[in-house]
């Protein structure tokens, strides 16, 4: 089954969210107008990320993180071409240059940076391939996506998309019944906390924005982040009166309604 599309209509943040919630394993490739990115996920966590083939090589990552001097870098470069990242990593650990966790942390930071750059991509065809094997010879990390998703939502500057996501401010918020994310694990901003403190079906987004002196844009961006993090959802405000709708058979006793429904079910089955 395909998981394909363009970032124009399904943003990178939404993609990360999907991968996170569905705990997906596989390779995500994105073909931007003049650049491309390749990411690999395991059980909904980021394992590897590279853009235009760079950011992938362990040696380059260590050098850019200033964990190697230029002369160390040059010396290793000559030998490194023969090794995969995994082999090189082992070599560096055995030679006492780094501990395994130092290497993993440097890689995590680099991958995080790659992901951050992807937040700025407004378009690009993406494809998720669950069959693809992990990138060969690369060191894989386990980086939870929750905070990246929140960060990404903050980056979302496009007014239009926010407007699409939250078309009206005359809606309210409620906490989701069974949040899939633990709120303690999130690095929420002060503004996000402040909005959270107003979550109630009685407060519309407009009222919250007024109370906190946030612009339409700011309240949308914050609420969007909270929704993407799986903490809250939009609900219709409690006070609003709805036009009555008269459901089929609503004036009949329950037994009769059930029997009418069963009649319809039998008929559809027999079509």
């Amino acid at each position: 089954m395909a998981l394909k599309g363009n970032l124009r209509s399904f943003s990178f943040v939404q993609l990360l969210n999907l991968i996170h919630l569905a705990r997906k394993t596989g390779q995500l490739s994105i073909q931007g107008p003049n650049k491309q990115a390749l990411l690999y996920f395991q059980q909904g966590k980021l394992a590897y990320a590279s853009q235009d083939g760079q950011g992938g090589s362990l040696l380059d990552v260590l050098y850019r993180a200033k964990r190697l001097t230029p002369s160390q870098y040059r010396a290793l470069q000559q030998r490194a071409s023969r090794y995969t990242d995994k082999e090189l990593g082992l070599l560096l650990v055995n030679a006492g240059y780094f501990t395994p966790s130092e290497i993993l942390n440097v890689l995590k930071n680099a991958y995080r940076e790659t992901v951050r750059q992807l937040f700025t991509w407004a378009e690009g065809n993406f494809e998720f391939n669950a069959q693809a094997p992990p990138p060969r010879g690369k060191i894989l990390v386990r980086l939870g996506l929750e905070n990246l998703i929140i960060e990404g939502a903050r980056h979302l500057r496009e007014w239009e998309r926010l407007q699409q996501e939250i078309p009206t401010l005359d809606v309210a918020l409620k906490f989701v019944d069974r949040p899939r994310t633990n709120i303690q694990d999130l690095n929420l901003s002060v503004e996000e906390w402040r909005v959270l403190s107003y979550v109630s079906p009685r407060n519309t987004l407009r009222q919250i924005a007024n109370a906190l002196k946030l612009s339409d844009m700011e309240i949308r961006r914050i609420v969007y982040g909270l929704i993407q993090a799986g903490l809250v959802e939009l609900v219709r405000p409690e006070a609003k009166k709805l036009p009555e709708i008269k459901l089929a058979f609503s004036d009949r006793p329950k037994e009769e309604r059930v029997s009418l429904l069963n009649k319809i079910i039998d008929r559809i089955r027999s079509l």
Partner: protein
Amino acid sequence: MQTVKIVVTGPFNAGKTQFIKTVSEIDVVSTDKKITSDQERVKNTTTVAMDFGRITIDENLVLYLFGTPGQRRFDFMWEILSEGMLGFIVLVDSTRPETFHEARSILETFKAFAPTPYVVAANKQDLEDAWDVEDLRIALRLGDDVKVVPCVATDKESVKKVLLELLYSILEYLEKSDRGRTKSQE
């Protein structure tokens, strides 16, 4: 004669007309006619695209299927839908993520006004580019309690399956609610 209605809604090109065509016993009537709305807007005419199909249940009961693009002209549609509605189906073209936003907002609109069970049908599952049902669930931000049924609107068995899933949900909802009373789904 008693009539009941099931509403089939969703973005343009999702497959609503096809869905109804596949199971309707009459040729689907697709309106594209001018409709004059109520008092304040007597001079305004609006084009409303609606499909209309029928399944006779027995000599006393007829099921109508209404296809409507949702959202726009909701107030007008309301007149037609507000009596005898059983539930609704939101059709989504599983191959076109660019329509998921709209599908989501149509769903929200209907949910807000019709406290009745619904299912989401992930249509065009026969196409190679179709998104998986579970991915769609997340993309549309649907909870685990919402049925997302794979669908191929050109296939009768598949359409029947979607209708049945909705009817089972309605039955369950009835069993849970108080005697003869209707409670909001939420």
